[in-house]
């Protein structure tokens, strides 16, 4: 299909690629430039900022009315906690699906598949009312608590994650566990000491997919969290910039750069794994 290029043929391709490259990168460069522009407004911005300075970045960390750095921290803490709990629960379930034969196994796998059909956010109204009533019984898990929000995210522990992980566990030969059990190990010890270390790559992938998904989640975070110091970045940034583009653009840009950085770094670092996860059906939030 591909022939060696004549000069002009090659040039044509590069020209087209550059058009898309500009499309892809211009918004990013424009925001990075804005983040260093002390004018803090959309008006009269140029791609290379005049009088470049770090005042916008400073504002992200010192503003008391809009504690953006705190929102980024909240997002990271919630993301890490959720991902860790999901990985633990999913790996337990996947281990059972992969290694045991029991009544209801088929239905369980089927349920895990079906759960994806109904994105949790569709039931946002019900979940809001559920958390509201949980909060009446246990206030620390109620509306406007991080624990309540994490609780909601844990609903996704089953589902596509369990399938991806079970598929990986299936490829680990059982002979190792069998010999360990002859030596007197319990199935739990086999899971903990043999399967988990061998399954590290998939554990990392699930952890990261979950982290990125949780970090970017907007609908539940905005429905459940109502006080400024508890916002996640997704909620806070939206409220911060809402219709204030003329007067907050620079600080917003700095916050965007800082907020996107952890995810972009993770993404670049683990592109190889993520791509394989993506092609098997996971869609980023």
């Amino acid at each position, binding site marked *: *299909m*591909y022939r*060696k290029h004549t000069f002009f043929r*090659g040039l044509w*391709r590069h020209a*087209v*690629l550059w058009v*898309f490259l500009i499309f892809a*990168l211009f918004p*990013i460069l*424009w925001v990075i430039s804005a983040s260093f522009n002390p004018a803090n*407004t*959309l*008006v009269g911005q140029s791609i290379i900022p005049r009088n470049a300075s770090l005042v916008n970045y400073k504002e992200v960390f010192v503003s008391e009315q809009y504690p953006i750095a705190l929102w980024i921290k909240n997002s990271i803490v919630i993301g890490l906690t959720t991902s860790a709990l999901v990985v*633990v629960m999913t790996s337990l*379930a996947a281990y*059972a*699906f992969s290694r*045991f034969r029991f009544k209801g*196994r*088929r239905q*369980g*796998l089927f349920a*895990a*598949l079906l759960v994806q*059909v*109904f994105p949790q*956010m*569709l*039931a*946002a*109204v*019900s979940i*809001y009312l*559920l958390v509201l009533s949980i909060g009446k*019984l246990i206030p620390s898990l109620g509306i406007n608590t991080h624990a309540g929000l994490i*609780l909601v995210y*844990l*609903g*996704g*522990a*089953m*589902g596509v994650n369990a399938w991806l992980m079970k598929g990986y566990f299936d490829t680990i030969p059982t002979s190792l566990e069998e010999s360990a059990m002859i030596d007197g190990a*319990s199935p*739990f010890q086999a899971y903990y000491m043999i399967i988990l270390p061998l399954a590290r790559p998939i554990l990392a992938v699930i952890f990261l997919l979950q982290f990125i998904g949780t970090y970017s989640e907007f609908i539940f975070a905005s429905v459940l969290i109502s006080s400024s110091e508890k916002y996640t970045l*997704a909620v806070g*940034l939206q409220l911060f*910039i809402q219709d204030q*583009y003329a007067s907050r*653009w620079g600080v917003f*840009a700095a916050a965007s750069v800082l907020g*996107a950085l952890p995810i972009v770094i993770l*993404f*670049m670092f683990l*592109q190889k794994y993520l*791509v394989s996860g*993506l*092609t098997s059906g996971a*869609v980023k*939030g």
Partner: protein
Amino acid sequence: MGKMMKGITLGLLNVVFIWIALFLLNAEAYLVFVLLLLGALLTNFIFITPKGYPYRYLLPASFFMILLVVYPIIYTVYISVTNYGTGNILNKEQVIAQFEERYTLEPSAEQYAFQVYRDPQASLWFLFTDAQGAQLLGRDGEITRLEAGDPILMQLAAFHELSRVELVQATNELSAQSFAYDDTRELRMRNINSFSVYLQQYSYNVESDQLIDLQTGTVYTPINGYFQAPDGTRLSPGFRAVIGFDNFRRLFGNPQITGPFVSVFVWTIQWALLSVATTFVVGLFLAILLNDPHLRLRKMYRSLLILPYAIPAFISALIWRGLFNTELGVINQILQATIGSSVPWLQDPFWAKVALIILNLWLGFPYMMIICLGALQSIGAEMYEAALVDGATSWQQFRHITLPLLMVSVGPLLVSSFSFNFNNFSVIYLLTRGRPPIVGAQTPAGHTDILISYTYRLAFESGRGIDYGLASAVTLVIFLITGAITFINFRFTGALEDVSKNV
């Protein structure tokens, strides 16, 4: 070791169960208590019998799945047949209690002047005087008539009498006071100068389940979540009640709701189709260019073109909102400089839709590019060699070899991408918030609202009151569509057969 772990785990779980059970009993939530009890029994069973062993591993994930996915779906179905929303938030008992607390001023109400005294324990004593000079003592919600020179008056004189200023400061405390005058009448504060006799307006009859207006004798019967008089007058507020398929009837039968709903529905489909089509075409095109092994700088192009996908979508959407800003955004500045006119990106229904498609193209083409690159690499070179021998043109090769083979692996992902975009709330909400609004709609609907954002606004941010019932009805429509798409996709990919094979 294993036994001890098991014992500790089960012990901890039971402690949690008991802790929650005590909460539930205290809150009189008996139904949930019974469910908890069943769950606790099941858990203990799973931990004690050897047969239950595998289920222990499934317990945590299943618990959260049932609580936060399965139960909310069932509850959504339930809410969709109720009138839950503004005006019908409380349950029936709470509404009855509210009505029984309502008092009206007696038509020819006499005014009582009053003095308030605070005793050393800081509790309040009221002294009322009517127009004839007769005095009443008000204390702890009761009143007693006083004779002239009653010894209690001496006692009052020893307390601190509230000054005019203090009375004004204590208005809230004072207006909360009421004193039983007789069975159906109360003495309440009328204004800063006087108290008056108020009549209880409604009384609830438990046997007949009716609310009776004590003044007019009108009988109100509970119908569809409201107490209703024989002439059809309804009392506000109403209460939460099952009202059958009324929400669905409104959705499909009330022109002011149906019109916007249909327009939202049509745009949702267009949006999902256009999103998949644009991202796929661009992604495939770039993948074909980048798949060329002779291309220089391939790796650089690839890693840079992926960048938009690495940025969290909510940040990208907000950034683009700034770029699309009509007055100050850079896109309009460029348009001004080059073609001399600007575009009302977020104000005009058509251009708002174009802006959304452009944003989603930016967000989504790298994903399509990645999966197409993967799929292209799996197509063997022999195919093309054979095609070259037969004299096929590049277009024929693409049309008859690349595309069909690509579709086998990428097709299902296109369907998933369709259902993802069908429910792509954050992009819509963060770029346009569903705006511009549809004029004349009875519900908060906008030209760029998709079903999920429409539901969200119905439930959480309508200025005209929230409507959980209608929102849940719309949700069920989305469930049905998403379910149907996924079912087709499963058939397509044979995912269901995979499940059978796995057993």
